[in-house]
């Protein structure tokens, strides 16, 4: 227990530190789901082991004096775990509320009449996919400003990109990663990486339809320039994004796909480690509880 109870936390730290180079080398479709699973498991695992650590404060209750020598954990650690749990709980509630609120808003866009492509009469260039409630549902929302900024081939790439988001159900991965990052703030970089891999996957989907990697790269560049030129397009400070359009364009123009399957195994091994450690810690915890009950 002295080691295993901290392992999910350690795995989260290692994931957070290594996720940037990992994300760039993972095959997008497989990688985004493997990373999402890793984030969820690391998130839940950390919450669970924190719960175990926190409940070991029980040894401070006079009636359970016997527990004092059984518990191999410092009180400070237990208090830290409790604080971590509290923060995670508050952040999770906020995240769930935000997700539900956004979904409700987006549902109104989904309910608009028309086909899958919803053109919006707005001069500011913008485009995004609005997830639906079932596979193949959802809308592609594009402003008139964006359509005018692109040529025919680039519009084809844009539509294919957003349709890939919908068909591959990326919104599920993004929501899960968002919740994992709320439970465990260490996983925020992992959530960003899942976002990046979703975009990469959609870019590859666009390549499959448009037939040219360069065309998709140019569509990204044209759209990004149009968005940046329209000053009011986004209140976000430029450079806010850890993974940007440049990374996606580089990936599209790379002569050889740089994806490595080996990295999937690395993430998988880390995830398994977190699961095993959580089980081990649970077993030890159950042993302590058993002895306490016998007294």
């Amino acid at each position, binding site marked *: 227990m002295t080691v295993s109870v901290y392992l999910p936390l350690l795995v989260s730290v290692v994931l957070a530190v290594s996720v940037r180079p990992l994300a760039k080398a993972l095959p997008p479709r497989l990688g985004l789901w493997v990373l999402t699973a890793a984030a969820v498991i690391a998130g839940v695992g950390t919450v669970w082991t924190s719960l175990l650590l926190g409940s070991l404060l029980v040894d401070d209750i006079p009636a359970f004096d016997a527990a004092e020598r059984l518990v191999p954990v410092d009180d400070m650690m237990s208090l830290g775990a409790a604080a971590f749990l509290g923060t995670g709980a508050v952040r999770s509630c906020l995240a769930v509320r935000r997700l539900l609120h956004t979904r409700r808003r987006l549902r109104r866009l989904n309910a608009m009449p028309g086909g899958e492509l919803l053109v919006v009469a707005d001069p500011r260039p*913008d485009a995004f996919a609005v997830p639906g409630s079932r596979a193949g549902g959802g809308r592609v929302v594009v402003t008139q400003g964006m359509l005018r900024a692109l040529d025919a081939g680039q519009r084809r790439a844009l539509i294919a990109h957003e349709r890939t988001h919908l068909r591959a159900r990326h919104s599920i991965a993004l929501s899960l990663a968002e919740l994992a990052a709320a439970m465990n703030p260490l996983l925020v970089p992992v959530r960003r990486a899942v976002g990046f891999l979703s975009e990469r996957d959609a870019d590859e989907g666009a390549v499959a339809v448009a037939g040219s990697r360069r065309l998709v790269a140019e569509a990204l560049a044209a759209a990004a320039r149009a968005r940046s030129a329209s000053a009011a397009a986004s209140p976000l400070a430029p450079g806010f994004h850890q993974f940007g359009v440049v990374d996606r364009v580089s990936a599209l123009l790379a002569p050889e796909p740089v994806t490595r399957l080996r990295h999937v195994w690395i993430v998988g091994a880390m995830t398994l480690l977190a699961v095993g450690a959580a089980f081990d810690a649970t077993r030890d915890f159950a042993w302590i509880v058993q002895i306490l009950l016998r007294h």
Partner: protein
Amino acid sequence: MARRDAARPRRSAGQLEGEILSALWAADGPMTAIEVQAAVGDDLAYNTVHTILTRLHCKGQVHRLGPAGRSTYKPAKGAAEVAAEQMRAVLDTGADRGEILMRFVSTLGAAEEAALRAALDAEGS
């Protein structure tokens, strides 16, 4: 990566509808089916373009003007105005800050702009 141009997969109906509708939106005025065919800029058959325009017309997404055979098409604007209000309502609440909104591109900083140009030029020359 092998060149995909030779074996290009057929595009789905949804993709084609989107391309044709977006071509109409990108244009300055009403277009004939032949103009749409040119604006979509690919090897699409005239019949396909015509079929999809008719389908879009039936769904109320485009207006058809003029006599049959020499009709011109333009996108229906009403729904788009309402959609614009809805979109602003979504974006103004900061929905785009959560990762759930899958946006095509972010804005660029000056450094990113330069890096982007370098990446595209390196390959092109």
